[in-house]
């Protein structure tokens, strides 16, 4: 688990009659990350025929995606799938009638289209009425400026009148124009008062509908405030009614999809199983009577996979396993990388893979990163109250973003960081900037503001020293990890003579010893002359050897003419290593910097709040509002800063030292894995 999982390459040849059972077994196991036979350089593999599935894979995917979009209309997300037993897989594939499924999906699509069309018509009405309402409001706004300035009077017509017929008849005729007909109340037993607003350009057409027998015209322009309000309110009401009717279609759609939820999920499951099943088959190659496939699996499931295939073929197959090294030597194929980080530490794995996927066979630093990440964040953001806020944000965020049972990684990381901040807050005795309980380790606030603090750390210089030692620790850890990675990849020269190898480490650790001795005793160690010789000479010699070896490797032999250039390179490299290590270590002082800034900012808010005082109720309210705002600001600002700096220290100072990237993620074809995304 501390390094990437050991992989083996599986190649199997099966008689053609076992094609389907083997496919089912591979899907049930969900362990094989297929290798295309094209990747093999051998002539035999290139002459193999491709297997085409009986149903087009792209069609299956298209309909599956379409179904997902239908489910999304009903706010539904397909459930996560687990690999079913092979018998069920075969039964599902055989029983799936693709034509029926496509007909069903097309039927639902047609129904959605029909409802959308209805919705569209109502939207047209909505926009028409909304447009007239806007123009009326603008006209009323302009009314106060004097009627001659009201340009709306030049094109807007507002009529009041009595309508003696069913308004829906007139509404239908008016639908084609920018107009609105709205009721203003009853005027008689069989008649109602209506207002009709339209544009002057449509005057002739509109008047042709307004038969004097059904409409007693009374053309007016706006002026009576009570009538204006009535008009606006009535149109607004009409607008809301249309909106409600329009939204009803979406609700109807949602309900219809919800009604069919179970059957749609079942169809989706069938499509996904078929898609994965045929995707596996398309990765096979064939000869006249056999099928051949190859892929990577984790070494620890080797027995389980070979047993499954053998059982499916009644033992009539040939299976070959090659180790990663053998596969690389024989076919030049690099294995994919499987990081076996436990689920609860996955957020830290994401921090690593965002930088780069570790190369095969190197260290998976997720365990260590989980510790260093929380250590750095906690030291920068050590307050139990603020940490609790982050922790709760992480918990609630994880719950709310839970999609496909996979909460957002950022919130999961926030839970860890919040926990670290709470832990360090308790150690520092800091709760929302208050010291409600005594510090278990040292009082950070006391150390920063210069109060006579008790505990092992009592002033800023000691805080700085603490973080410098943290830097030395993290860098040293990075160097040690690099030793391991170099050894596992058999990069012996890099292990011995690289700046992150033994030579560089020796230089660094000697430097740390010198500085420590000087700071502790006020003078360098007495063995200065041979100490200098040893700590500078040895690395210099090793760096020089590496440069010479590189030069020989590049040019085939050593050229004396390149010696001055090599010496110059050596000098520059030495300076670079020296200044690099110094800067990298000092870089960790930012951990103290951020921690001090956190404490200082809270102190500022407390000072400001004390200036307000608490002697009256008003002042007391002001005091607590300021404290609250201060806490919010510190959580947001410092939380973000601490987060960025923690990431930066890991990416730049830690990972750069040892992490060999460029790995390809292991992606087996299975139902529980998003292999095609």
């Amino acid at each position, binding site marked *: 688990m501390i390094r990437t999982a050991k992989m083996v390459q599986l190649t199997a040849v099966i008689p053609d009659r076992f094609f389907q059972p083997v496919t089912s077994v591979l899907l049930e196991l969900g362990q094989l990350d297929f290798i295309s036979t094209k990747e093999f350089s051998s002539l035999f593999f290139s002459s193999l025929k491709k297997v085409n599935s009986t149903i087009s894979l792209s069609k299956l995917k*298209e*309909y599956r*995606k*379409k179904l*997902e*979009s*239908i489910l*999304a*209309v009903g706010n539904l997300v397909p459930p996560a799938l687990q690999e079913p037993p092979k018998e069920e897989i075969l039964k599902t594939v055989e029983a799936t009638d693709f034509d029926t499924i496509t007909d069903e999906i097309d039927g639902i*699509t047609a129904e*959605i289209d029909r409802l*959308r*069309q209805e*919705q*569209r018509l109502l*939207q*047209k009405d*909505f*926009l*028409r009425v*909304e*447009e007239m309402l*806007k*123009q009326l409001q*603008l006209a009323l706004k302009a009314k106060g400026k004097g009627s001659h300035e009201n*340009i*709306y009077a*030049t*094109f807007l017509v507002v009529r009041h009148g009595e309508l003696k017929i069913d308004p829906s008849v007139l509404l239908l005729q008016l639908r*084609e*124009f*920018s107009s609105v007909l709205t009721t203003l109340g009853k005027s008689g037993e069989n008649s109602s008062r209506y207002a009709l607003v339209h*544009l*002057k*350009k449509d005057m002739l057409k509109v008047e042709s509908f307004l038969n004097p027998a059904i409409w007693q015209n009374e053309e007016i322009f706006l002026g009576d405030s009570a009538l204006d309000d009535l008009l606006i309110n009535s149109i607004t009401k009409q607008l809301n009614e249309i909106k409600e009717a*329009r*939204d009803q*279609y*979406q609700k109807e759609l949602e309900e219809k999809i919800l009604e069919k939820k179970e059957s749609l999920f079942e169809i989706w499951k069938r499509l996904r199983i078929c898609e994965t099943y045929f995707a596996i088959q398309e990765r096979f190659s064939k000869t006249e009577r056999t099928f051949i496939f190859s892929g990577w699996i984790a070494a620890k499931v080797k027995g389980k996979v070979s047993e499954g295939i053998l059982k499916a073929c009644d033992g009539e197959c040939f299976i070959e396993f090659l180790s990663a090294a053998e596969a690389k030597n024989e076919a030049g194929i690099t294995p994919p990388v499987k990081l076996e980080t436990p689920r609860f530490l996955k957020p830290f794995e994401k921090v690593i893979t965002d930088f780069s996927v570790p190369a095969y066979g190197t260290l998976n630093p997720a365990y260590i990163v989980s510790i260093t990440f929380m250590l750095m964040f906690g030291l920068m953001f050590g307050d139990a109250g603020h940490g609790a806020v982050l922790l709760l944000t992480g918990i609630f965020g994880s719950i709310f973003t839970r999609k496909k049972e996979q909460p957002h990684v950022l919130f999961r990381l926030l839970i860890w960081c919040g926990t670290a901040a709470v832990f360090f807050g308790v150690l520092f005795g800091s709760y929302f900037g208050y010291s409600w309980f005594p510090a278990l380790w040292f009082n950070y606030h006391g150390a920063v503001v210069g109060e006579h603090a008790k505990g092992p750390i009592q002033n800023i210089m000691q805080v700085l020293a603490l973080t410098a030692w943290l830097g030395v620790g993290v860098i040293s850890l990075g160097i040690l990890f690099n030793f391991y990675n170099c050894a596992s990849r058999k990069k012996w020269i890099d292990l011995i003579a690289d700046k992150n190898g033994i030579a560089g480490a020796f230089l660094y650790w000697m430097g740390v010893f010198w500085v420590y001795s000087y700071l502790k005793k006020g003078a360098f160690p007495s063995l200065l002359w041979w100490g200098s010789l040893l700590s500078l000479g040895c690395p210099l010699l090793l760096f020089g050897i590496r440069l010479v070896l590189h030069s020989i490797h590049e040019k085939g032999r050593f050229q004396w003419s390149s010696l001055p250039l090599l010496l110059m390179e050596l000098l520059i490299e030495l300076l670079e290593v020296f200044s690099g290590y110094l800067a990298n270590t000092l870089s960790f002082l930012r951990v103290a910097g951020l921690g001090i800034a956190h404490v200082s900012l809270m102190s500022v808010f407390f000072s400001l709040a004390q200036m307000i005082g608490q002697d009256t109720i008003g002042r007391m309210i002001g005091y607590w509002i300021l404290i609250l705002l201060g806490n919010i600001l510190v959580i947001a600002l410092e939380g973000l800063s601490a987060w960025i700096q923690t990431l930066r220290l890991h990416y730049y100072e830690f990972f750069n030292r040892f992490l060999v990237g460029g790995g390809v993620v292991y992606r087996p074809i299975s139902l529980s894995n998003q292999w095609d995304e």
Partner: protein
Amino acid sequence: MSRASDYDYIQANIRGKLSNLLSEEFLLDCARSKDLESLLVAFNETPFSFLRDLYFQTADLKSCEKKLKENELAAIENIYKKTSGAVADFCKVLSLGYEIEKLKELLRLWFDRAVCKHSIDALTPYISRDKIIHDIPIDPILNAADFRQVVDFLKGLPYFELLNAVVDKIETDQTIYNAEMALDNYYFFSLNEAVSHLSSSDRGIAAHYVGTLIDIENLNRLVRLNSYFQFTKKELLSHLLPGGNLLSLHDPIFKEESNTIDWNSLFQKNFSNYFSDDYSLDHDNLLQILSHVEWLGKQIREHHVFKALSANPFSIGIIIAFFIRKKTEIRRIITLLNAKYYRLPYERVKDLL
């Protein structure tokens, strides 16, 4: 103030925004969606998830387009608010471009209603009523009886003088092309004016960008005026804008009286970096020529973005790059929405993108 401090915040801000733009790969994947609803669901995890909610609520594609255009303008105005001095003035002129486009759209609608006697009622709700820089009297323009009245409504705005000068021409020709051209000319004039006030290093970058825009505009004018109005090459010259980077107005071609243009040789001569030898245009196929001009414009703009992003980050180049990329992103999304609404096949959508 140093160059770095002028742009430190804005360049970091824009770099963040640039990385949030939808990638080519994602858009091509979207082009594979079966229909509009599937496409909108694909936008769920992007900053455009509002499109899904809006469409599910209204089933109205044009409302989505309107919202997207507002989103584009808001992004540019957001940059404008974060800048100051001459850079802010330049950004303001970029926003002015949107106002001019809106005014042109209003004029086209007015023309459709008043001159062509078409109903525009279905289109007017999609006009954004938000103020960009000036208060444009939308309803009065759309309802104006004639063009003179349209111009009268614009009194007090910079557009009044420009359009007043072409009233007679528009009334005689019965086309608003001259009004549109006058507005475009004003936009380019304002851009050049804003560029002249920038610092010397910014001026070079911005002037190159404006030159690029002028080249694309001139090419469009050349094709349209020559094809629709049969202008001779000499006549065309007076309608072209000076200041382009690639298309020279001193080219002997513009001294000829004939109206036949050899498009292949014109493109080869002036745009050789973007025009391959083995590509040949059919002179009678206007659509092909226009789509080639559009393709050329895209190439030139993309080249400009590449240059701007790889040059000094503390310069106006980053703002211009964002402006181009944001515009392209919105245009592509609108293309996708329409293509999926009409269920165009993947290959066709890919070409359109």
